[in-house]
């Protein structure tokens, strides 16, 4: 570590950005073999992995027959065939070891009477290619993500992993197309740190805050994804954003799909179990895109519950209170705390909530980041929600994200440390922090009248209105026009807090810049995909069009604004990897 001009310089073999599940799993894999630093905008156990509830899929077959091949098929079909099947095979095959790794680290899974890891049902996970729901989700009550995050952090403490907490990474330093390190802003002091590393792993999570109604944390502003995009790295499949069916109505707080896995039923205002009409075989346990759409449709057609008929009901009243207490304690408490509803006796008001980005920074199965359809950027890795490998395709299955962070987080750790052992450090340019310093100075010194919170609110509202469960060319163009307007107003913001210490006012302004970038890419790719697939429903193109769109989108930032379109983003396409499963109609 050295210091000059108030910039502190650090050097490590492997730099991991983000201390959620993927980042810490990578650190554990790499930590004993090299000098590893984990840089995170939060203290590690504050990361949003901790909010995941229901479980982690793995075909352990502890309670009934199961196989990794069935799991692969479910993942591919659940993703509406946009999944890269080589990656899905790895996800399913390595899931068993991933669960055992966590158990061995100490994770307190729920147990079967004979002491094995217990498993339960979850949406879209089936026996023998769709015949019936299967018990595949390994879980710890309804706080599986909390237990994964705690266990990974505990293991990092055990291994003595070095953390830089409350450091906001604001730039990726590229030198001649290769990564040299990252630049970070230290929240406590306002100082700038430059981290040189032979390998850089991005594990920065999602960007749900582009939407208003979301299960995501306030801190999920997509910093890592936006930084990569600004540095010329394409973003893959950004039009596929998952809306989780059961957010607490009006609030968006997540109620786990485990509620339905344990027998909960969705009902409309008249008490009808409406999922019987939409997915006759697996009903309430259909994949999330189908359930969210069905719910939105019930409301749109006037069958919603409540004074404004704007939500549906999650009914747990037929479950034994003891079962609810043992398996769903947290989510039932959310209903009591935030809505004053007693789930033992009353159904819970729910509506879809923005939840998970299927798309992100493109990688291959070694978690290496790609600069186009197939060119690897040596030394740069990504894993978890910020990445797109793509195991989730057009719609992620529940319990596959906690699995994803463990399987591909581990792979990112393994391959990044392997690379760092032989690679030379890419020279760090002398002015590495220049762009960050300029950005901060510009934001800090802005003297306009616009308020960051107001612009963010308007962005989130336009995304909820125009790019949520239902989309058309018209709504998407409306969103784009609004984003263009917000960009202009963003030039005229001001930041009230001019201090150096814990200046969250300044950082919220910087984060809004990331949100604007990602919302724009999301809307543009939504517009370019003129078909309906998985989570992406175009009401003006209601059918899946395999002839034209059985491809991933790849959005690139251009150097200049196109005169005809008025935007600086180009959308290209990338073939889907198909191994065993040809696209079929998706019925449940």
């Amino acid at each position, binding site marked *: 570590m050295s210091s000059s001009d108030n910039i502190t310089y650090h050097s490590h073999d492997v730099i991991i950005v983000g201390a959620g599940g993927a980042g810490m799993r990578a650190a554990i894999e790499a930590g004993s073999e090299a000098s590893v630093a984990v840089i995170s905008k*939060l*203290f590690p*156990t*504050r990361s*949003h992995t*901790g*909010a995941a509830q229901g479980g982690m899929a793995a075909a352990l077959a502890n309670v009934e027959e199961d196989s990794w091949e069935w799991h692969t098929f479910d993942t591919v079909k659940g993703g509406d065939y946009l999944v890269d099947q080589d990656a899905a095979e790895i996800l399913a095959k390595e899931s068993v070891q991933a669960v*055992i790794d966590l*158990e*061995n*680290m*100490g994770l*307190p*899974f*729920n*147990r079967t*009477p*004979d*002491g*094995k*890891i217990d498993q339960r049902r979850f949406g879209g996970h089936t026996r023998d290619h769709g015949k019936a729901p299967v018990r595949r989700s390994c879980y*710890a009550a309804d*706080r599986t993500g*909390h237990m994964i995050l*705690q266990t990974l952090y*505990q*293991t990092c*403490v*055990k291994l003595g992993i070095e953390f830089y907490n409350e450091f906001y990474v604001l730039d990726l330093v590229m030198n001649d197309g290769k990564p040299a390190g990252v630049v970070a802003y230290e929240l406590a002091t306002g100082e700038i740190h430059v981290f040189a590393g032979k390998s850089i792993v991005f594990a920065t999570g999602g960007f749900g805050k582009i939407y208003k109604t979301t299960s995501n*944390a*306030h*801190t999920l502003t997509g910093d890592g994804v936006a930084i990569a995009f600004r540095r010329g790295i394409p973003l893959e499949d950004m039009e596929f954003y998952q809306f989780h069916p059961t957010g607490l109505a*009006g*609030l968006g*707080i*997540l109620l786990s799909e485990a509620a339905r896995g344990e027998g909960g039923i969705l009902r409309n205002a008249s008490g009808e179990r409406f999922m019987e009409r939409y997915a006759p075989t697996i009903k309430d346990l259909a994949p999330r895109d189908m359930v969210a759409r069905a719910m939105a449709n019930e409301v749109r057609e006037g069958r919603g519950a409540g*004074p404004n008929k704007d939500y549906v009901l999650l009914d747990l009243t037929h479950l034994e209170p003891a079962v609810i207490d043992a398996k769903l304690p*947290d989510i039932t*408490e*959310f209903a009591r*705390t*935030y*809505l*004053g*509803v007693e789930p033992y006796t*009353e159904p*819970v008001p729910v509506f879809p909530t923005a939840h998970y980005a299927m798309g992100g920074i493109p990688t291959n199965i070694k978690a290496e980041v790609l600069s186009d359809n197939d060119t690897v950027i040596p030394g740069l890795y990504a894993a978890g929600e910020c990445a797109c490998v793509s195991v989730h395709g057009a719609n992620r299955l529940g319990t596959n994200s906690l699995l994803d962070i463990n399987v591909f987080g581990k792979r990112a750790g393994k391959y990044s440390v392997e690379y760092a052992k032989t690679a030379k450090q890419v020279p760090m340019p002398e002015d590495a922090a220049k762009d960050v310093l300029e950005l901060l100075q510009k934001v800090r010194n802005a003297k306009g009248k616009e*308020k*960051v*919170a*107001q612009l963010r609110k308007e962005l989130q509202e336009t995304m909820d209105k125009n790019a949520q469960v239902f989309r058309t060319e018209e709504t998407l163009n409306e969103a784009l026009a609004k984003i263009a307007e917000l960009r202009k107003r963003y030039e005229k913001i001001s*930041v*009230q*807090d001019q*201090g150096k*210490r*814990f*200046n*969250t*006012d300044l950082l919220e302004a910087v984060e809004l810049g990331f949100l604007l970038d990602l919302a724009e890419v999301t809307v543009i790719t939504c517009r370019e995909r003129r078909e309906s697939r998985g989570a992406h429903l175009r009401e003006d193109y209601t059918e899946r069009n395999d002839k034209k769109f059985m491809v991933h989108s790849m959005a690139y930032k251009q150097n200049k604004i196109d005169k005809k379109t008025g935007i600086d983003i180009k959308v290209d396409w990338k073939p889907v990897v198909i191994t065993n499963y040809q696209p079929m109609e998706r019925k449940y």
Partner: protein
Amino acid sequence: MDKAIAEVASFTVTIMIRRFDPEVDQEPKWVDYDVEMFGTDRVLDALHKIKWEIDGSLTFRRSCAHGVCGSDAMRINGRNRLACKTLIKDLDISNPIYIEPIKGLPVEKDLIVNMEPFYQAYRDINPFLMASDTPTKERLQSPEDRARYDDTTKCILCAACTTSCPVFWTDGQYFGPAAIVNAHRFIFDSRDEGAQVRIDILNDKEGVWRCRTTFNCTEACPRGIEVTKAIAEVKQAILRGRP
């Protein structure tokens, strides 16, 4: 629920915040804000409203906003709570709501404290599974053995318990409830072999014997952990010399 949401219309409430900016202020001061809130709003919503609409320099930690990340523990009307889990309508809104940083840790700015001494106490009790075997499969654990330490696995390290403890306020060296809760989580895990190590650590003069069973910690825990009971079980384990 319809009743709960529909009938609690908007209301105006006064929020008094203990503010301190080390770059400007010599010492902390109370500042009051009047804000219009709604029936489902939490204290965190009020803080955001002030930060986003009135004074951007108001500083606090927050992330998940629904009580699982543990970022926003603070003293609200004299009690440690999570701002995101405290509904304003459940407080006495006819009087000002007083919000100040949790006690016993150095204040950095406004509602942000230096958590490092708290984290260090946690790390000091070896908060990780200690086992000599190298299994190739899952270890077995009966549901009864799993239930033995279930309660203490809920901890989110928010520090609400430790910073509500009068012993911790006067003696910052005391491990505090949260560290002991996390020791309990491993001492009573049938897979763990490190109980003796942790028992020795907590049998120290700054260990469990400093607990005066005032139950502040149990009342403060936003996760409903029976903290005082967990501490008592660790004390018993020390006396027995085993879990």
